């Protein structure tokens, strides 16, 4: 008996500490990544000022002298992100409401499985489909010299943001206490009036979080955009122009740089900018997710 309980307490100790370490590991990794980005990226600002870097209109990293202005890249990311958000948010939220409030049990199961499958498609496959089908279609539709545009990227990325938006928004809607629906129906409201007037507001924090996480997904996506947005580092004036995003720039150019060189450092600095953007997007999402738990008991 005595031996046994001692063994148990040792095992307990080991299990507890292992779990603690696993938990801490994620924080340590984030910090290490951030430190590494800082170490490699900050050197850029000895070559070019922060202002010239963020607002410079020319990205010519291998001309001499090189120009490291990432405004066209920020513009490219912005164009693709805004386009994808405009497409995926209305559809995503509508389908979340359909799944949570309207669909019958079988339809619900089918749709949720479908959404999960959509999330499971590798981004390179999405990019491939975009390159072969969507980009030529958009080129023909708008009579453009090339279909590889911000719009093509936005269309494909909206598909990738959808699963995130739908599943998180659907969770938020499903978590609305049933007593609100009961109250609304007992007051003679229809299901539609309940959804528009009560459910939307009761689930609003979760829906905002879903949208932010969907945006985070789009900003960080690399492979698909690299394949279908045309990779042209100019400041876009419409969604029908080729663009190049920050992520695609890093992925496309990192292989050609000299490790430790100026170009190399500049790419890390882009990574730093991306990190800061996604950090804030996720922070906003997190604030809203917790707000959700705070107000709706």
């Amino acid at each position, binding site marked *: 008996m005595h031996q046994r309980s001692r063994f148990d307490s040792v095992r307990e100790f080991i299990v507890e500490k292992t779990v603690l370490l696993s938990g801490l590991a994620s924080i340590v990794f984030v910090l290490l990544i951030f430190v590494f980005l800082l170490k490699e990226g900050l050197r850029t600002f000895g070559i070019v000022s922060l202002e010239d870097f963020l607002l410079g209109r020319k990205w010519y990293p291998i001309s001499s002298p090189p120009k490291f202005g990432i405004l066209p890249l920020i513009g490219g990311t912005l164009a693709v992100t805004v386009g994808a958000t405009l497409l995926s948010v209305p559809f995503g939220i509508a389908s979340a409401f359909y799944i949570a409030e309207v669909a019958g049990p079988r339809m619900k199961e089918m749709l949720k499985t479908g959404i999960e499958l959509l999330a499971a498609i590798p981004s390179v496959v999405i990019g491939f489909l975009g390159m072969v089908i969507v980009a030529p279609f958009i080129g023909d539709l708008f009579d453009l010299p090339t279909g590889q545009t911000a719009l093509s990227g936005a269309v494909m990325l909206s598909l990738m943001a959808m699963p995130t938006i739908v599943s998180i928004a659907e969770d938020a809607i499903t978590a609305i206490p049933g007593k609100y629906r009961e109250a609304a*129906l007992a007051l003679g409201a229809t299901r539609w*009036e309940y959804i528009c007037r009560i459910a939307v507001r009761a689930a609003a924090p979760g829906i905002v979080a879903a949208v932010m996480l969907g945006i985070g997904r789009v900003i960080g996506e690399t492979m698909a955009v690299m394949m279908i947005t045309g990779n042209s580092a100019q400041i876009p004036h419409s969604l029908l122009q080729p663009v190049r995003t920050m992520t695609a720039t890093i992925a496309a150019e990192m292989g050609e740089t000299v490790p430790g060189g100026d170009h190399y450092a500049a790419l890390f600095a882009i990574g730093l900018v991306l990190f800061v953007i996604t950090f804030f997007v996720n922070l906003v999402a997190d604030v809203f997710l917790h707000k959700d738990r705070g*107000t709706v008991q």
Partner: protein
Amino acid sequence: MTTSSTSPAIETRDLNLYYGSFQALIDVNMVIQPRRITGLIGPSGCGKSTLLRSLNRMNDLIPNVRVYGEIRVFDHNVCDDKTDLVGLRKRVGMVFQRPNPFPLSIYENVVFAARVHKTAKGSDFDDVVERCLSSVLLWEDLKDRLGKSALELSLEQQQRLCIARLLAVMPDILLMDEPCSAMDPASTQGLEELIARLKEEYTIVIVTHNMQQAARVSDDCGFMLLGEMVEFRLTDEMFKIPQDERTRDYVTGRYG
């Protein structure tokens, strides 16, 4: 029975209700007169809430419910599939066991029905809010903070707000499902006084597990047991000279 010239507000005829294979109501017959308070009492699981919830078809929300027989509300059979549920629920409103104000402002809670049913617009909303909150004696307390969230109110205030929200629909019948069960004694007394006041304008059916409450507030009373309406009569008679042995045992506290 009372011999009244007015037609009944609610009448059930051989009402049988099943949840799947479980029979929750067995041949329930009752007549509820307008502008009276009818109490439904009985031990837990006797079917009194089920009966109440079938009167405005809230049982429709539960899967596998089957209803046989008739429920006549102002002489219309509401068990019919073609029943206009929105119209029915506008006439027959419900107050729930736990207060369930919407997570909106006090003001928006009260005008919800007016917005949905488009019975008021523009500045009329202010009148609706004042009228309904006054009816439940909340106006003086809340008139300066109508924009605050309804979830910040005390439980009693929340329940009063739910009644006010319901009055905005301008119903004829109020169904109350143990409206005081989440309240402390002082709040219960306040709500009972309110219910007595509302009798002047509304027909009220109140389910309660609290016999004293039924004795205090109701005019007529039904005692239910295992899905059956054992006895339905004037409340005074029910508690003084119950006819059925099971009723006598219940009101004298032998079980329940």
